[in-house]
């Protein structure tokens, strides 16, 4: 099923649906008592959800029969970037009225805005180099190394969320657990790989010594 052409289309529609829903509410002027906050929270929520989804692909595809999940990783990442850009635009326009002196001060002075900005900025080169052509141009190894920037984005997004809430930290805490869990899984895999290759070499040496 994961291999079907349709699943990609379905995922595309599913990821676009929140935007469509928000656009509809915007058009209907149905954004609640604080429309700016609604826009900010809605776009921010979908950004961090999609960052987590993107980070989840690699660990999940190691599970049996899920290896084809890799087909969706790029789309999830690009949608995370898309909602992140919307989130930033809402801030620039509705919150700050494009007052760039204020914005520069904000980004420099306020840790939660610095973190959010840095996390989004780190996604830009990833979105840019997400095509097959760029994988070729950079070479698989280098491309992969560059795209580890998403780990930074994950951490920055969690910090952004943590630092912006006033007192109720349940949701940022949940995302922190998810992001750090997904990063820890990677550390585990890396350790296993290293360990495995090390024990391979050892076994080789032992068998060679035995045969001599």
């Amino acid at each position, binding site marked *: 099923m994961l291999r079907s052409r349709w699943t990609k289309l379905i995922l595309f529609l599913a990821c676009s649906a929140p935007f469509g829903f928000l656009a509809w509410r915007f058009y209907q002027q149905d*954004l*609640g*008592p*604080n*429309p*700016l*906050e609604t*826009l900010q929270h809605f776009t921010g929520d979908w950004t961090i959800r999609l960052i987590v989804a993107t980070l989840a692909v690699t660990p999940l595809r190691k599970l049996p029969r899920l290896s084809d999940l890799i087909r969706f990783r790029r789309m999830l990442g690009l949608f995370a970037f898309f909602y992140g850009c919307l989130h930033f635009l809402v801030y620039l326009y*509705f*919150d*700050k*009225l494009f007052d760039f002196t*204020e914005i520069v*001060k*904000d980004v420099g002075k*306020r*840790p*939660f805005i610095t973190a959010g900005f840095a996390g989004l900025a780190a996604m830009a080169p990833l979105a840019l180099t997400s095509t097959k052509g760029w994988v070729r141009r950079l070479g698989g190894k280098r491309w992969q190394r560059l795209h580890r920037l998403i780990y930074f984005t994950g951490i920055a997004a969690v910090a952004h969320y943590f*630092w*912006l809430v*006033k*007192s*109720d*930290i*349940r949701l940022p805490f949940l995302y922190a657990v998810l992001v750090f869990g997904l990063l820890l899984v990677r550390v585990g895999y890396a350790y296993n790989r290293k360990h495995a290759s090390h024990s391979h070499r050892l076994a080789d040496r032992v068998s060679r010594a035995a045969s001599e």
Partner: protein
Amino acid sequence: MLIRKSGDLRHSDITPKSIYVNRRRFLAAAPAALLATRLARGTTSKLAVAVKSPFSTTEPVTSPNVVERYNNFYEFGTDKGEPSRNAQNFKTSPWMVSVEGECAKPRKFGMEEILKLAPLEERIYRHRCVEAWSIVVPWIGFSLNALLKQVEPAPKAKFVAFQSYWDLKQMPLATPMRAGIEFPYVEGLRLDEAMHPLAMLAVGMYGETLPPQDGAPVRLVVPWKYGFKSIKSLVKIKLVGSMPPTTWNLSNAHEYGFYSNVNPQVDHPRWSQKMEQRLPSLFRNHPTQMFNGYGEQVASLYTGMDLKKNY
């Protein structure tokens, strides 16, 4: 103390022209609209207002739809949509407010008595939240000093401590685990701030008693300070000699000071206070005024004080 009056009111200041011009349609729609708000509000009832206050602003009043659906009242949930949903069965009768501490005649006041302490006034105040949004609300009530004078504050009294109702049976979400702040919610004012005629004890808004999510049945309204100073659902007022603890200051002293006067020059560490968003506007495009525009009346309370330090 000299209390200056804001400029004279014209009818067009109160009634937007579009409504005036379409008054027949407005009148025809009124019964349905009234029914709708009544259903949403649960248990409020009409309050007769004797006096229109000279303190009132002439700015357009915010729709009650916003004021009743967008609330910071952590006892009923931390999301601003939650209190209007979770507080509907809040029991506000019988209700007692205990006024105690450094005073000659400490005692408890029943709600019926509070309603008769002074003529009920309608005061249209700007209300500025520390989160950089604002609303304009027609409160009903009277100056807090009318209540404080009843107990005759002693010379030792320098501050006033306030406490909200707290009951886990009615407010299951009101725990530090869920809300991230301590309960019961407490606030405080200096005695001279509390005695200032602008500081108000509110028992209603929009011509009716307070809906639960807006602090029923009686709350404080201190219009020159950030909204969290205007404590809701009051049960205890204590005259004290030294600065009392306040909830948000206990939670994060670096961000929320005791005074918390509205001040566009002193940023909250995490956001600018220069501009505010007049709900339900999409834009944060309304310049914030010093003391929320009440400087003429209250600035003298703070002469000689460094307001950057005493934020």
